[in-house]
């Protein structure tokens, strides 16, 4: 049998029961709050507002990487002042609780109530409010991160589309040049490029690949195309070396500042003489198909943007009937299939030397073969091919 309780003990027990009941009611009120906004500030202020009402507080202050407060400015200021130093025992009108965040850091939720000191139940309730606030902030930031990612993906798509529009859609009308030029961009905008111009009797062209992916690569791709087109116009019939050094002088600094480079194959093909000049700054695969053999044209210098081009001499090739010039990009060669195999140089070269009646037929066959090889495996990089048949004569598809 329990000993009889005194009046003071009964008062304490009754007080504790009331406090517990108040705490439960407060918690019930808090959890029934519907947060309708995924905006961080709105969600946090809604919770603080409800908590202020439940606690009968004058002001609340959440100290996190971004501070939030509710209450009259003077009370918030008083709370800020109290929180600059650890809350003292005599400072019973103010209290604070530490709250653990999902990333392991600790934030602080402080409260000010001038009418009466905070009890144990109030502090527990304040702790629950803190956890609710941290959850709301985490949820809002996750939502924002999702939105940012969606915007980024959309930006990449837009960049890719815009960059593709910088590629020439026209083809030179000449019976002495059978040209195929096509670029198929990967999902994450890459930096493959080609462009060309027919200046009098000379077909100038550029094929390149900007390092990296995404917006920077797409921007540098369009910049390089613009510089190439301007170089074609400014150097006239000077040839490939002049075009390459002109492009380098215009884009080197920008590339270097961006930490990017562009592999670039520059060619000038005289339609009358059949003489082809090439300058290869780190681009591959490039070559000439002659007598059913692929003869690679090795790079003469590193890609543009790595080191300033001081001097370069063009390589000269005499093309004859049946010869094919090839400039592709690594996206064709390095395409993977479902089991991790790579399309590779050998498959590409076998296609390039195969019977083809015209450049268009050859180009389409290459793209189809790489696509078939990939199957359901996503396109890993931009795929680009520029090929022309020298002195095509009567051949056609």
């Amino acid at each position, binding site marked *: 049998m329990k000993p009889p309780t005194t009046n003071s003990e009964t008062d304490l027990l009754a007080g504790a029961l009331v406090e517990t009941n108040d705490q439960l009611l407060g918690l019930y009120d808090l959890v029934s709050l519907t947060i309708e906004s995924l905006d961080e500030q709105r969600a946090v202020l809604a919770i603080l507002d409800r908590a202020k009402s439940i606690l009968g507080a004058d002001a609340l202050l959440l100290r996190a990487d971004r501070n939030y407060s509710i209450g009259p400015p003077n009370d918030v200021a008083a709370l800020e002042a109290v929180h600059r130093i650890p809350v003292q025992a005599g400072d019973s009108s103010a209290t604070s609780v530490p709250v653990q965040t999902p990333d392991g850091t600790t934030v602080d939720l402080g409260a000010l109530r001038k009418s009466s000191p905070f009890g144990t139940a109030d502090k527990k309730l304040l702790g629950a409010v803190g956890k609710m606030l941290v959850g709301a902030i985490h949820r809002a930031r996750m939502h924002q991160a999702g939105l940012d990612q969606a915007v980024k993906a959309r930006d990449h798509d837009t960049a890719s589309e815009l960059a593709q529009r910088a590629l020439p859609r026209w083809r030179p009308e000449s019976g002495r040049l059978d040209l195929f030029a096509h670029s198929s961009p990967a999902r994450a905008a890459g930096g493959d490029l080609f462009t060309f111009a027919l200046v009098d009797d000379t077909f100038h062209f550029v094929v390149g*690949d*900007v*390092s*990296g*992916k995404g917006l920077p690569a797409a921007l540098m791709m369009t910049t390089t195309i613009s510089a190439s087109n301007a170089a074609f116009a400014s150097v006239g019939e000077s040839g490939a070396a002049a075009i390459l050094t002109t492009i380098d002088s215009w884009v080197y600094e920008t590339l*270097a500042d961006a*930490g*990017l*480079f562009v*592999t670039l194959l520059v060619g000038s093909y005289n339609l009358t003489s059949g003489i082809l000049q090439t300058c*290869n*700054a*780190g*681009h*591959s695969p490039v070559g000439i198909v002659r007598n059913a053999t692929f003869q690679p044209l*090795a*790079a*003469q*210098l*590193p*890609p543009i*943007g*790595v*080191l300033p081009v001081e001097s370069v001499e063009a390589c000269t090739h005499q093309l004859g009937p049946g010869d094919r010039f090839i400039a592709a990009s*690594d996206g064709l060669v*390095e395409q993977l299939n479902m089991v991790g195999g790579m399309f590779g140089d050998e498959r590409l070269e076998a296609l390039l030397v195969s019977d083809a009646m015209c450049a268009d037929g050859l180009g389409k066959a290459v793209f189809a073969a790489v696509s078939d090889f990939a199957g359901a495996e996503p396109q890993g*990089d931009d795929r680009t091919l520029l090929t022309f048949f020298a002195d095509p004569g009567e051949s056609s598809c």
Partner: protein
Amino acid sequence: MDISVTETPAPTTRSLTLRGRFDAHEAPAFRDALDAAMDNGHHDLAVVLTDVEFVDSTALAELVRGMKRCREAGGDLALVSPSDPVRVILELTKLDAAFTIR
């Protein structure tokens, strides 16, 4: 890709050993490791590529960026024992002329 950073007897030198595929997905980790070494005053970096199976253009751009940063600080970034696939890429792109290769 694995990256391990090794101390060397010379105080300004560090060795970064890479293993596996070195591509656009792995480039940020390499950049972090390189920047951390540079920020700690190591301006002579040796990047060991013996066990790297593949490099793409993004990875090459990171190596070029690192090489430029080291040279601007008075040091250098050397490529050490590149595997055959890496050596082929360096030769095809003529980047072997830009890097110190040991």
